[in-house]
């Protein structure tokens, strides 16, 4: 089974985010990065499928030079090789454009399965995987919690809302977006880290992907991003800070005498 794992590198979860003066994005220089959580689970699931059914796991990551760190981490965990697309010149929040570029890279490979996380922790549009499947002409299933290989296809458990689930069957090749918590993520071993150094990371640019500047142009789907900002608060929040004991007493008093909920 040849599996391609789409993996994004995102700022670590509790990063202190500072918005640029023009509101175009956050200051990225001081940030630390990690593998997007649900992509991490997708990678683990791919490694488990490979161990059970043999095959190959190829990492695909788009982003600036720094994403090579995430790629190396994935290779150390057991992925066989990787593809890196440097998108510094065409960074966009439009999932349609990002999916087109990823599709161009995947079309160069024969594959049985494409896995990605269900959404990224930064943009969070939860769209790129599904659009990617459409671009590749393969069926997809989202929010997947279990994968079983069958003759000629797969059977997957999709999460629905409020504790409900659904089993669906798909032929191969297909694309799945993986829910966090589907498995327990492994740690890289020292041996894995050593072996990763010899593994291939192929860098691909637009021309190698057969794409032109116009293919990655902003606005082709009608999407216009204007700015980001600190959320407008809808509720007045009373904040307590400082000495734990004083804070605790004040809060207890408020809950008893003001909110009257205890």
């Amino acid at each position, binding site marked *: 089974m040849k599996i391609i794992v789409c993996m994004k590198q995102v700022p670590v979860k509790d990063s202190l985010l500072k918005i640029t003066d023009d509101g175009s994005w956050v200051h990225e220089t001081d940030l630390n990065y990690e593998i997007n959580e649900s992509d991490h689970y997708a990678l683990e699931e791919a490694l488990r499928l490979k161990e059970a059914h043999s095959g190959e796991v190829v990492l695909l990551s788009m982003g600036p030079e720094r994403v090579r760190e995430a790629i190396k981490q994935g290779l150390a965990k057991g992925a066989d090789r990787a593809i890196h697309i440097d998108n510094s010149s065409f960074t966009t929040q439009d999932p349609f454009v990002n999916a087109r570029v990823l599709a161009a890279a995947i079309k160069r490979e024969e594959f049985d399965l494409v896995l990605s996380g269900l959404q990224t922790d930064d943009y969070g549009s939860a769209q790129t995987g599904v659009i990617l499947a459409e671009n590749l002409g393969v069926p997809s299933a989202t929010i997947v919690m279990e994968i079983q290989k069958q003759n000629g296809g797969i059977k997957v458990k999709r999460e629905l809302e409020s504790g409900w689930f659904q089993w669906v069957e798909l032929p191969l090749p297909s694309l799945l977006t993986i829910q966090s918590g589907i498995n327990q993520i492994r740690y890289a071993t020292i041996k894995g880290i050593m072996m990763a150094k010899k593994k291939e990371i192929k860098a691909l640019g637009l021309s190698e992907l057969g794409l032109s500047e116009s293919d990655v142009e902003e606005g082709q789907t*009608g999407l216009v*991003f204007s700015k980001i900002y600190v959320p407008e608060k809808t509720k007045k929040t009373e904040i307590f800070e400082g000495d734990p004991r004083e804070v605790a007493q004040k809060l207890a008093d408020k809950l008893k005498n003001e909110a009257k909920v*205890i």
Partner: protein
Amino acid sequence: MSNILVVAEQRDGTLNRSTWEAVVGGQKLAKELDKEVTVLLLGKDIKDLADETAGKGVTVMVVDHEKLADYTPDGYSAAIKQVVEKESPAYILFSHTYMVRDYAPKLAASLGKALISDCIRYKMAGDKPVFVRQVFQGKIDADFTFDGDGPYLVSFQVAAFNADDLATGGSGVVQNAEVNMDGVEIRTKVLEIFEGVKQEVDLSKAERIVSVGRGIKKPENMDLIKQLAEALDAEIAASRPVCDDGWLPLDRQVGSSGQTVAPKLYFAVGISGAIQHIVGMKNSGTIVAINKDPHAPIFDIADYGVVGDLFEVLPEFIKSVKKL
């Protein structure tokens, strides 16, 4: 006619309650833009549901077809695409449910148009709506607009609008839309739908809930949460990561994949407040949040916020409560 199409979601002849929220969003937008709302209903043998829906005074368009008996991404996106090509709506609105996440991006891609997903609201800038969605898991808001020809696709977060605000009193017409599904291949085979976690605890009935998130760090620390819950006479709940790690049973999970609650007191400990959690508890009476990150989005919806180390504050708080 340049219309606003709201795509309804049904399973076994029952509408998803968030459909009405999306309809309310559509009605508000329609008022701003001087347009009409049509609710699109897809399925097989859904006449009763169509009549029931139209009975609330909204115009309903029904697509009834064998290939739409079960929801599949192939069936739904092909059918909606045909309706859209025929009707040329200005906007197509959805509620950002797990089903919509599964097919709406595919539909948008097949139309070559953008979908602004998981919006929390819109605001008008002149005569143009600006759609607001959250990035970085709710820590930051982002503004998006559409340019060029429609249709414009937008999905709204669950509870972005209040279903009680539904404007009734329209004519309640039911129209039938014909689609040709002959060439549409349904590649996904739908098997059973089942309830995965037996809900043994009904958190929706709890008056007070202590809810714990990633910030608790280790399962050993759950004891502190138990003491807090006892002191407050509260049920214990959790955000998803805590249940994923097995520190609490899955039926104690609050959020989009767990239970929806609205207790008198919701006491969030070490929960950052990702959208998936917030949709499950934002209608609680009094919300208290303890978190060491002053920018955690949970503080945006909290009535009382403690910025600090929960391991220092909670033992003192438990003492204070016991003294009351």
